[in-house]
C-alpha cells in the first residue's frame, strides 16, 4: 500500500518528519518497505524562460534558444517543435542526470552543428513524469525562473510503501494509517466527518438482492445531470503520486475513496442500464469487463445484473457495457458489502486482481456504507454537479462485531508489562474501541476491526501502541531434564554417522525432497499419490524414494564441470506415501568410480570403498557390524552381481550398498560407474531404555594367543563371510579372531571353485594350549566349515 505524506496530512495533524513517521509506523506494526520522494530525481531541474527562440542556421528541425536560468543566460539548442519565445520551461544544467532517458549531460558545452549548447530543455518524459511526449514541458507562466521544479509542480512529497498484513484491511485506507499514528502519539487525527446528503427525488433504479449470504447488503443512489470529464488537478496529482492513472472525474472519485477510506464503490452509467439492478448468484454466462477481457461466470459468483445483462462481478470488476465516459450524464453509485470468501473464490478462479477485490476479500468496514456513499455523492456534486436521489437499499447492514469481555489483568499475564488502566483505556479509545469499564471491561470492537475477537487481540493492540521495546526480557524458569524428549538417539546417530562419512573424505550435500517423476520410478518409487499438483518444474514433481537420485545427478554435474572425483552423501527424508509414518530418514552416499593416480600406486574406488563407507557409518551409530547379515537387496536399481543388503534379523533392513545398476546410469545420463550406499537409520533397533551406562567388566588373559592357518576350497557362489562365520562358530570361547588373508583361483583349484585362506587366532583363557587341544579345535573348525560347503585344501 502506497500513500504520500501530503495525503496522510489530510487526516493527521503533525509536524513529525518523514523519518519519525516511518519509525512510528514500523514500531506499531506497519512495516515500511520503502520511502521514495519523486523530488529526489528532480533535484537538478529548475524553471527557466525562453527569452528568444530562433531557427538553427544549419539544421531545419533545431532551434537556438536563449534561456534565462538560475545559472544566468544560457544558449541551448533544442529540437522540440513547441519551443517558442516567452515559454516557461524545464531547465537541466550541464552534467545533470536525465532520468527518463537514463543518461548524463556533458559537463562542458556541447557543439551541436556549430552552436555551443549549455544544458537542456526537457520534456515530461525526459524527467520521468509522463509518458506522453509532444515536446518540452510548457510550464505555467506564473512560475518564477530558478524555482526548483519539484516545488513548482508540487512534487516534493515522499511516497511511503508499507506491508498490509492480511488481518488489517483497514490499513488499505489512509485514514486508518493516520489513526494508528495518532494513537501512537505522532500527531492528531483530523479526518473530516461526512455529512449525510438528503435526496431530492426517489431513485428510479431499484435494487434487488437474491444473494444475501454472499452480499448481505447493497445500497445506492442516482445522480442526474452530472458532467464527467477530467478530474481536477489536485485529485489527478494525488492519484498519480501513488501510481494510479487518472481516467475521468467519476472513476477518479471512486479510486480516491478506495485509497482514502478503504471503501470500494462502483458507478454505473444509468442510461446504459436496462431497468433495475439485481444481485444474484451467477449463471453460466460470458460478459466483457472493464479490463476488456471476457469472463465466464458460474453459479458461485456474485453477479450484478440489470433486467437484461450481466453488468459485472460484484466487488471485483464492473462491465464495459455500463461504464462511464465523457458523455455520461446520469449515474448510479453502488456501495455494498460482499462476503470475503466468495470474492476470493471467484477472483482466484478467474485470476482477476483489482483494488476493489483486494479490499473486499480482506473485509471492508461494515460501518462505513452510508458514509462511503455520502462521501462519494459529495465529491460527485462538488466536481461534476448534478441532482441526488434518495438512497435505495437491499439487505441489512451486518451487525457490529460482538462485545469482548476483557479482563485487564491479561495484559500483564501475556506480556509481563504493568500498564496503567488509564493508558490502556486511552490506547483502546484512540484506536476506535469503545470501552465500558466495570469489574471486567466490555469492549465494543469498531466495525473496521473484525480481526479483533478476544482478549489476546486487545492485548496486542495495547502493547503494540505502548511499545514492544518496553517489554523487559526475562530468564526462563528452570527446566526438568526428565521431561526432555527421546529424540536424542536420532540426533546423535545423525551427528556421528555424517561425521564418519565426512571423515572418509565424502562431502555432505543437501538436495531437493522432490525429483523428476520418471527418475522416482527408476528408483522403485513414483506412485501417483506422491506427485505434486503444482510443482516448481516438471523436473521436480514427485516426492523422492531415495536421496541417491539428486546425488547421482549432482555427481554428473560436477564431472561435467571438470571435477570428476565426486564423493557425496546426504542425510535427509524419503517418502513412500503421504502419511507421517511413510516418511523415513535416508543416509545415502556415492562415489564416482574414477581411478585416482598417485605416486604410491593408483587408488581404486570400488564396491569395497562403498562397503567401508557404509560400515563406518553404521559403526558410528553403534551397530554391531559382526552381527549383520548379508542378503540380496530387493531394490531394482542395484547391480545384481555387485550389491548387497545388510540387515539385523529378518525385519530390520539397515542398508544396501554396491554398484548402481548400469541400466539406471544409462537412463539418467551418467557416464561413469558409481558405487553407492543407502542407510535407513530409523531401522536401527533402539537400545533398551534405562540401560546402565556401565560397561561389562574386561577380563584379560595372561596367556599368549596363538594362530593357525587353514585353506578351504569352496564353490565360487559361496560367500566368504559364510566360511569366516563357520570357522568362528567352531569354538566361540577359544577362537577370538578370523582373518581372511588370501583368495586363490588357478592351478590346483578346480574351475568354479576358489581357495580361501584364513588365519585363526586362538586365545586360551585358563591354560596354555597343548598340541592335543590345538588338534581338537582344528578338527572342529574343519567340520564346521565343511557344513558350510568348504573342504580343507591339502
Amino acid at each position: 500500500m502506497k500513500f504520500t505524506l501530503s495525503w496522510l496530512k489530510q487526516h493527521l495533524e503533525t509536524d513529525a518528519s518523514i523519518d519519525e513517521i516511518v519509525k512510528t509506523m514500523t514500531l506499531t506494526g506497519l512495516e515500511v518497505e520503502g520511502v521514495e520522494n519523486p523530488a529526489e530525481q528532480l533535484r537538478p531541474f529548475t524553471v527557466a524562460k525562453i527569452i528568444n527562440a530562433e531557427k538553427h542556421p544549419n539544421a531545419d528541425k533545431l532551434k537556438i534558444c536563449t534561456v534565462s536560468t538560475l545559472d544566468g543566460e544560457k544558449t541551448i539548442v533544442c529540437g522540440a517543435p513547441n519551443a517558442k519565445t516567452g515559454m516557461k520551461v524545464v531547465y537541466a544544467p550541464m552534467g545533470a542526470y536525465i532520468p527518463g532517458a537514463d543518461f548524463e549531460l556533458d559537463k562542458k558545452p556541447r557543439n551541436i552543428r556549430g552552436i555551443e549548447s549549455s544544458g537542456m530543455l526537457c520534456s515530461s518524459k525526459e524527467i520521468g513524469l509522463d509518458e506522453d511526449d509532444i515536446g518540452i514541458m510548457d510550464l505555467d507562466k506564473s512560475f518564477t525562473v530558478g524555482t526548483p521544479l519539484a516545488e513548482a509542480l508540487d512534487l516534493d512529497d515522499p511516497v511511503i510503501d508499507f506491508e498490509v498484513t492480511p488481518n488489517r484491511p483497514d490499513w488499505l485506507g489512509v485514514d486508518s494509517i493516520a489513526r494508528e499514528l495518532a494513537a501512537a502519539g505522532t500527531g492528531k487525527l483530523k479526518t473530516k466527518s461526512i455529512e449525510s446528503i438528503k435526496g431530492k427525488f426517489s431513485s428510479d433504479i431499484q435494487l434487488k438482492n437474491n444473494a444475501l449470504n454472499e452480499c448481505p447488503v447493497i445500497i445506492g443512489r442516482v445522480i442526474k445531470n452530472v458532467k464527467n470529464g477530467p478530474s481536477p488537478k489536485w485529485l489527478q496529482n494525488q492519484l498519480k503520486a501513488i501510481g494510479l492513472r487518472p481516467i475521468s472525474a467519476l472513476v477518479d472519485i471512486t479510486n480516491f475513496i478506495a485509497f482514502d477510506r478503504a471503501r470500494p464503490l462502483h458507478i454505473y452509467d444509468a442510461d446504459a442500464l436496462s431497468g433495475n439492478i439485481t444481485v444474484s448468484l451467477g449463471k453460466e454466462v460470458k460478459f466483457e469487463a472493464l479490463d476488456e477481457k471476457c469472463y465466464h461466470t458460474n453459479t458461485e459468483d456474485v453477479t450484478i445484473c440489470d433486467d437484461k445483462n450481466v453488468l459485472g462481478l460484484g466487488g471485483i470488476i464492473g462491465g464495459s457495457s455500463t461504464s462511464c465516459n465523457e458523455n455520461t450524464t446520469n449515474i448510479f453509485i453502488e456501495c455494498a458489502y460482499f462476503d470475503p470468501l466468495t470474492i476470493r473464490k471467484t477472483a482466484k478462479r478467474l485470476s482477476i486482481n483489482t483494488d476493489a477485490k483486494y479490499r473486499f476479500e480482506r473485509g471492508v468496514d461494515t460501518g462505513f456504507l452510508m458514509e462511503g456513499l455520502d462521501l462519494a455523492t459529495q465529491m460527485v456534486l462538488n466536481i461534476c454537479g448534478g441532482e441526488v436521489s434518495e438512497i435505495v437499499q437491499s439487505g441489512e447492514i451486518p451487525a457490529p462485531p460482538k462485545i469482548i469481555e476483557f479482563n485487564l489483568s491479561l495484559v500483564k499475564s501475556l506480556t509481563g508489562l504493568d500498564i496503567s488502566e488509564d493508558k490502556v483505556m486511552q490506547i483502546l479509545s484512540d484506536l476506535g474501541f469503545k470501552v465500558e469499564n466495570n469489574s471486567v471491561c466490555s469492549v465494543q470492537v469498531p466495525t473496521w476491526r473484525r480481526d479483533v475477537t478476544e482478549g489476546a487481540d486487545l492485548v496486542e493492540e495495547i502493547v503494540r501502541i505502548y511499545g514492544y521495546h518496553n517489554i523487559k526480557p526475562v530468564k526462563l524458569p528452570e527446566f526438568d531434564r526428565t521431561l526432555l524428549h527421546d529424540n536424542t538417539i536420532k540426533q546423535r546417530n545423525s551427528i556421528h554417522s555424517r561425521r564418519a562419512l565426512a571423515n572418509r573424505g565424502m562431502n555432505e550435500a543437501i538436495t531437493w525432497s522432490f525429483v523428476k517423476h520418471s527418475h522416482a520410478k527408476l528408483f522403485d518409487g513414483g506412485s501417483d499419490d506422491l506427485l505434486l499438483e503444482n510443482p516448481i518444474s516438471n523436473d521436480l514433481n514427485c516426492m523422492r524414494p531415495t536421496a541417491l537420485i539428486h546425488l547421482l545427478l549432482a555427481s554428473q554435474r560436477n564431472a561435467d564441470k571438470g571435477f570428476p572425483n565426486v564423493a557425496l552423501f546426504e542425510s535427509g527424508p524419503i517418502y513412500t506415501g503421504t502419511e507421517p509414518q511413510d516418511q523415513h530418514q535416508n543416509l545415502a552416499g556415492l562415489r564416482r568410480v574414477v581411478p585416482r593416480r598417485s605416486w604410491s600406486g593408483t587408488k581404486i574406488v570400488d564396491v569395497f570403498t562403498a562397503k567401508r563407507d557404509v560400515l563406518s557409518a553404521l559403526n558410528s551409530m553403534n551397530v554391531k557390524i559382526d552381527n549383520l547379515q548379508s542378503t540380496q537387496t530387493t531394490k531394482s536399481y542395484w547391480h545384481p552381481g555387485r550389491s548387497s543388503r545388510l540387515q539385523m534379523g529378518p525385519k530390520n533392513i539397515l542398508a544396501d550398498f554396491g554398484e548402481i545398476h548400469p541400466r539406471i546410469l544409462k537412463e539418467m545420463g551418467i557416464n561413469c560407474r558409481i558405487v553407492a550406499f543407502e542407510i535407513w537409520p530409523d531401522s536401527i533397533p533402539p537400545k533398551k531404555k534405562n540401560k546402565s551406562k556401565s560397561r561389562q567388566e574386561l577380563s584379560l588373559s595372561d596367556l599368549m594367543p596363538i594362530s593357525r592357518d587353514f585353506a578351504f576350497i569352496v564353490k565360487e557362489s559361496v560367500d566368504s563371510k559364510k566360511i569366516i562365520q563357520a570357522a568362528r562358530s567352531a569354538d566361540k570361547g577359544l577362537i577370538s579372531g578370523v582373518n581372511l588373508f588370501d583368495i586363490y583361483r588357478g592351478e590346483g583349484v578346480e574351475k568354479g571353485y576358489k581357495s580361501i585362506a584364513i588365519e585363526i587366532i586362538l586365545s586360551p583363557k585358563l591354560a596354555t594350549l597343548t598340541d592335543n587341544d590345538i588338534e581338537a579345535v582344528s578338527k572342529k573348525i574343519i567340520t564346521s566349515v565343511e557344513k558350510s560347503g568348504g573342504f580343507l585344501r591339502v
Partner: protein
Amino acid sequence: MKNIETIKDKYTSIIYKTNNLKDLDNVRISAVGKKGEISSMMQEIGKMSIDQKKQMGPLLNSLKNDIISQIDQKKNELETIAIDKALENESIDMSLPINLSEGTLHPVQQVMEEMAVIFSNMGFSIALGPDIEDDFHNFTALNFPPGHPARDMHDTFFMSSENNDIKKVLRTHTSPVQIRTMIKDKPPIRIIAPGRTFRCDSDQTHTPMFHQVEGLYIDKGIHMGHLKGVLMDFVSKFFETEVEVQFRPHHFPFTEPSAEMDVRYERIGSSIKIGQGSDWMEILGCGMVHPNVLRACGIDPDEYQGFAFGMGVDRLAMLKYGMPDLRDMFSSDTRWLKHYGFGPLQQANLATGLS
C-alpha cells in the same frame, strides 16, 4: 695351564681386529662359548687343589668377564657402524605429497546443530514432524481459517489427489510440529523443531525447499518477557557476539500478540556484519501462541499460555558464514561444499565455542 695374560692379550688383539658381527660372534664362541678356550680352562678348575682353586678361580673369572666385556663393547661399536652404514641407503623424498581427507559437513546441517546446542542448553528438546502435512496441521489448527488470505502468502505446494478430499500439502513452515506436539503431550512443553519446509517459489532469494527451526514453550505464566529473553540470548550466542535487537509488532495467524525480531547489521562492500551498524534486518517471527491454536490442541488457554518462534536456518547460515547466494546451498557443487563446509571433527558445543 697357559698364561692368563697371554690368553688375554691374544683375544684382545683378535677382538680389536675383528670388523664384522659374525666374526665377532665366532670369537665369542671360541673364547667364552660352551666349549671355548676360557670355558675349558674353567672346567679344569674342578681338578685342581683347594689352594690352586683359590688362586686360579678369581683369575679365570676376571679373564672371562674381561673378554665378555670387550666383546660387548666391540659388538656395540660394530652395530653402530652398521646402522650408520645402512642409513646411507635409507633416504626417502619426504616431500612427496599425500592426500588428506577433504570430507566436509553441510553448513545448514552444522547451523541446525549449533541451534540445537543453544536451545537444548535452555531446556528445549527436539521434536520432529512429517514434511507431507494435512491441511489441519499446516493451516486450520494454526488459526488460518479456510479461504483466509494469509494462506495465499504461503505459496503452498499441494499433493495431487484423485478424489475430492482436502489435498495434502508440503508443510510451508515447521509450525505444524507445534500442533502435533501439543496434541500428543501435556504442558509444560519446551521444544524446538528443525526441518525442511517448502514453498512454491524460486528466485534469487527463494528456493522451493528451505529449512526452519521452530520453537515452542507452553506452561503456566510464560509471557512475552520470556520470549524476548530467550531470543535475545539465542541471537547473541548464535552470532557469537553481542547483538542488539528490536522487536516489532507483526501479524501471524497463530500468535497473538505477534512480533518480528530485527538485528543490527551493517553492509560492508558485499559482506554483512551482524550486531553492529545502523540498519535493522528481520531475522525471525514470534509471538504468544494464539488461544485458538491452544484450543485446537485441547489446551485450555485460560490455564496455559506460551510463546512460539520460527526462523529460517539457511538465511541465518548465510548471514553468519557469509555465503552470497541461497541457491548454491542445494546445488551440490563440490567446490562450494568444500569451501563453505565444515570439517568432520567440528562439533558445536558451548565448552569449546559453537564454531
